[in-house]
């Protein structure tokens, strides 16, 4: 027993050391990013530093006051797109998962297999046709094609399905029906609340994915006032040598990251709890 507790102690120490190192690595990049946002272009070009400089406000003002560079508008657009996608994505994925979990119908197996099959399809494969399609639909240069397609998210569906399997007793649905609740109402008022942890997890994942998405928006958007944050950053970076300002670029990246970090930190408890509670477990 003595030996066992000693081994445990050593393991505990190792665990702490490794965790501290990993955490350091994870935080280091945020630190560098923030430090860089406080430094001027000239300082940045001269090399790295781990000490903050004095240009934080200057950089921020450069980003905020540049009329040709609609930062606030960009953040606003990003929130609409990310929030919209996240909401639609989790709601309809849950609905789809519910349909396949609770009901029995002829094409159930086909539908399930089909969704699992398209789970593997790389997005890039269809990008070409996607753009052509939305152009023909008159949705080019609009935020709609960035939001609507998230209704069909096979991976989120799969997560929701696993979650339902582990935490929704069918008897509950039965009971609701006996109480005279309509099918749709049952889903909204009884099933959704049960799924809250899973919804929270996928909401943040979808939100982050959409927030950082550069690929599709850059494809679809054309007008400056509709640009989302990642495209604005690319525009800044793409500026020519004459008004290239890396301080501004880093500040913009910081501005882009801070909101999601806040959202993440606020939600982190329920997110981790959500994954832990049911997630994709038995």
């Amino acid at each position: 027993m003595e030996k066992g507790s000693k081994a445990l102690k050593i393991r505990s120490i190792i665990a702490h050391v490794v965790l501290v190192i990993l955490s350091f690595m994870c935080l280091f990049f945020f630190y560098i990013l923030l430090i860089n946002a406080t430094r001027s272009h000239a300082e940045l070009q001269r090399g790295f530093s781990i000490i903050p400089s004095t240009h934080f406000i200057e950089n921020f003002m450069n980003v905020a006051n540049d009329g040709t560079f609609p930062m606030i508008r960009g953040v606003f657009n990003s929130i609409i797109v990310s929030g919209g996608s996240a909401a639609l994505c989790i709601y309809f994925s849950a609905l789809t998962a519910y349909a396949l979990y609770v009901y029995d119908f002829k094409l159930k197996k086909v539908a399930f297999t089909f969704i699992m099959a398209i789970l593997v399809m790389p997005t890039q494969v269809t990008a070409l046709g996607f753009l052509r399609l939305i152009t023909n639909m008159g949705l080019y240069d609009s935020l709609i094609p960035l939001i609507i397609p998230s209704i069909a998210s096979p991976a989120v569906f799969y997560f929701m399905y696993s979650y339902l399997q582990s935490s929704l007793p069918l008897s509950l649905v039965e009971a609701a029906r006996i109480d005279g609740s309509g099918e749709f109402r049952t889903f909204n008022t009884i099933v959704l609340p049960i799924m809250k942890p899973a919804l929270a997890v996928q909401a943040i994942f979808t939100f982050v994915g959409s927030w950082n998405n550069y690929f599709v928006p850059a494809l679809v958007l054309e007008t400056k006032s509709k640009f989302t944050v990642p495209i604005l950053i690319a525009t800044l970076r793409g500026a020519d040598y004459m008004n290239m300002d890396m301080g501004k670029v880093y500040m913009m990246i910081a501005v882009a990251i801070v909101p999601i970090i806040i959202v993440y930190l606020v939600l982190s408890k329920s997110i981790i709890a959500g994954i832990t509670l049911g997630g994709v477990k038995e």
Partner: protein
Amino acid sequence: MKRRVLSFLLAASMVASLAACGGTSEGSSTDAPAAEEQTQETSGDTAEATEPAGEEGKIINVYSWNEEFKNRLEFVYDQYDKTSEDGTITYLKDGTEIHWTINPNQNGVYQTKLDEALLKQADASADEKIDIFLSETDYVTKYTDADADVALPLTDIGINPDTDLADQYPFTKVVASDINGVQRGTTWQACPCLFVYRRDIAKDALGTDDPDKVHEMVKDWATMKETAGKLKDKGYTVMASYADTFRAYGNSISKPWVEAGSTEINVDQQIVNWINDSKEWLDAGYFDPKVKGQWNDDWYKTMGSKSKSFGFLLPAWGIDFVVKPNWDGKDGSWAATDGPQAFNWGGSFIHACTGTDNPQHIKDIMLAFTGNKENLMAVTKEFVEFGNTMSGMKEIAEDDSFGADFLGGENPYKYFTPAADKITMATLSSYDQGCVELIQSSFTDYFDGNVDFEKAKANFETAIKERYPEITAINWP
């Protein structure tokens, strides 16, 4: 969800390409109704474009990759009134609006969006058609192509290049002309390059920092190589990177990368010389092995005071916008002189787009911008560039009172101006951008010793065929 997030994170240039696909779709819905009324077609018939002198559109749409043109227009154009808060609309005094569509050059986004819009041009309504677009030397030929006919000949909007633009440097006119010699664009700048060097290193290793004397030591490649040896003995490198010499070799090739009508790439002897010389110089320690190419952190750092790099081959914009911001020492530490070879690097061209409904305005802007000596001089001094006016540059070169503080009061135009006179650029093709970019990146591996010469050649061939599907063969000298 990992898959989801990953796929969504897809970054950067993929976009560029994909945006291009939009161009192939037949007529977007937004411009469909207007297309009907569109009488003036875009077939590039000269007669059609010249005639609408009276009816000018109210909106001038400009495509560009940065604000360079806009800033200069605001500074120098006498019809300029004001620009909207968000910078997207500029008003002229007669109420005409200039709408700016600015897409980053990075990863080719600008060109793909422009190409897409050009392909839709015929169907777009008058107010949506592109009126002016800009191009850079590296791809100007793509847009001045006679068959493509997207840039109007200057004569079509009433500019006679021979008289109206007589004071421009001839090579800038050649560059903007199609295969038949019809000029389809014009620029306000010429970009002759000089050798810009550190005075302290010159004194230490070469015993003098006098531009004329230093010129004697870098006057041709053989002499420069000897000088590089001397610098090396003192622990310096003559230039930072092998890429620093590329433009000098690459812009003096004897025939274009791809000749008109051909689908074969010809790698010029000059390019092979660049490869061989670069390898030799790099192995001999004349370049800094830590610096790969240009426009990256390592390269910028070689412009700092701790660097051991002697100098750079740069045009006027390079001194003020590349070296100066990265220099952390005192003003007056640098000097400029003629390099081993006269060559041009860069340049932005203004084109009138086929189908425009504002030919009068475009003519006016073009003339004010590129054919007005006074304006060109003002822009030259304000933005530290090299104006496209032969007589004006001669005046500046001879003006002893004009000196650049950064160069210790030296007047660099004394060297720029004669350098500009020597430039001939008659060997452009629409494939230049890809060739220039890919030959450098493919042979970096060879310089580093990662692959042998043959493998680097093969890698270049693979990369170029990916970029240009129609290329059938690559000929090496």
